[in-house]
Each structure stands twice: as C-alpha cells, then as structure tokens.
C-alpha cells in the first residue's frame, strides 16, 4: 500500500505541476481539480496505513 500511496501522491503532484505549465485556462483548471482528487486519495491511503486493523487485509481461509 505504501507503493500505491507514493504513486498516487507523485501522480497528483505531477498533474498539478502540469496544470501550472499549461497555458489553456480551462484545461489547467480541470487538471488542478483532477490533481486534488489524486491528493485526496493519497491522504486516504495514508490514513488507511494508520488503521489498527483492516479486516479486508486479514488473510482468509482461501489464502
């Protein structure tokens, strides 16, 4: 999950950076909105790692 968190965070920052480079106003704003979602996902994934128990990750009888 750490890898995924880093990936989302990096992607979010990359999209934000791209948004500040692009001259087209509407596209720039759209990219900023998308980057905010990616950064929100990053925050959520970070919080997930602080959960004491995540039942979804406990091995079940199949594993």
């Amino acid at each position, binding site marked *: 999950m750490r890898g995924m968190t880093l990936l989302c965070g990096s992607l979010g920052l990359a999209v934000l950076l791209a948004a500040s480079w692009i001259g087209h106003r509407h596209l720039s704003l759209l990219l900023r*909105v998308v980057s*905010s979602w990616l950064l*929100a996902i990053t925050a*959520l*994934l970070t919080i997930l790692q602080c*959960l004491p128990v*995540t*039942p*979804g990750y406990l091995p079940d009888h*199949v594993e």
Partner: protein
Amino acid sequence: MSSKKLGALWLLLASTPAVAHTGTGLAGGFAAGFAHPLTGLDHLLAMMSVGLWGAFLGRPLIYALPVIFPGVMVLGAALGMFAVPLPTVETGVALSVLVLGACIALSLRAPVWVASAIVAVFGIFHGYAHGRELPSAADPAGYSVGFVLATGMLHLAGISIGLLNDIPRGVLVTRSLGGAIGVAGGWFLYRAVVS
C-alpha cells in the same frame, strides 16, 4: 480408456475453483468502491448536484466545489474508518440531496464561502458513510481510489448537465431537475427519520 474414466477426467478438467470470494484484490476493491456512490441513489444525486450547482454558480465555484467535496469527504471517511461516533449520518446524506436539489431548483446564488461551507458539511456525511464500509472491503486501497474517482466523475457529470444552461430554456430544464432531486431528497429524509 473406459467411459467412467473419461467421465471422471472430464469432470476433473471442467471443475473450477471455489469462487465464493469474488471481488477480492485491488481490482475487486476498486470496482466495489467505484460502484458504491453509483449504486446508492442518495450518493449519486448529491454528488451530481454538487457539480450541477457549481455550474449554476459559475467561477470559481464550478471548479472549487468538485475540489472541496472530495477533499472533505476524505476527512469524513477517516472519521468513519476510526469509528468516531457521528449521529444521523443517513439523515445528513438525505438532507444533502434535499438542500442541494433545492439550491438548484431555486437557482440560489450563494456567496463563495456559504456554498463551500454547505458542500463541505455534506461532504463529511457522505465520506463517513463510505468510510464505515471501507475497512471491511476486500481491498481498502482499491476501494478508496474507486469511490473518490467515482465521486469526481459524478461531479463532472453534474457540470456537464449544467451546460444545458447555455441553451434556450436550458435553465428551466436544469432547475426542474433540481426540483426532482429535491423531492427525492425529501423522500430519503422522510425514510431516514421515520425508520
């Protein structure tokens, strides 16, 4: 080879592993998370209404509201994940549909801080509802990605519908849609309060 042996061999080859545990793994979690806002009518209508109301309000809220809602929703999801008591979540979600639908129907042009505050408060309730289910999902990481992206897509869908405002009588259509959403919200609220 005898027919019995052939039959047994056929059965052996045709057998499949137990598939009771569907929806597992990252892809399964993502699918479940992505479907969660789409399959809950209250979630779906509220999130589309955020985009639609943003389209009514114009800049900067047309861009700010789809940023504020998912951001605050993450906070609500965190509260849900840590099981922080939050009373009347269903009522809050139902109220969000009612209020946002009414704002669209009335073409309410709220100041930036008021619209942001309204959307933020409701974002907490929606996030909490998603977060309470998240820890039991097959893959919480995939689930998280799924429901945040679905939320964003619904906001964009609402904004797209809001583009009808630019055509003749388009405002009438979108305001009527807002009215219908508000009525649905009233029904959800009635069910949430009565049950």
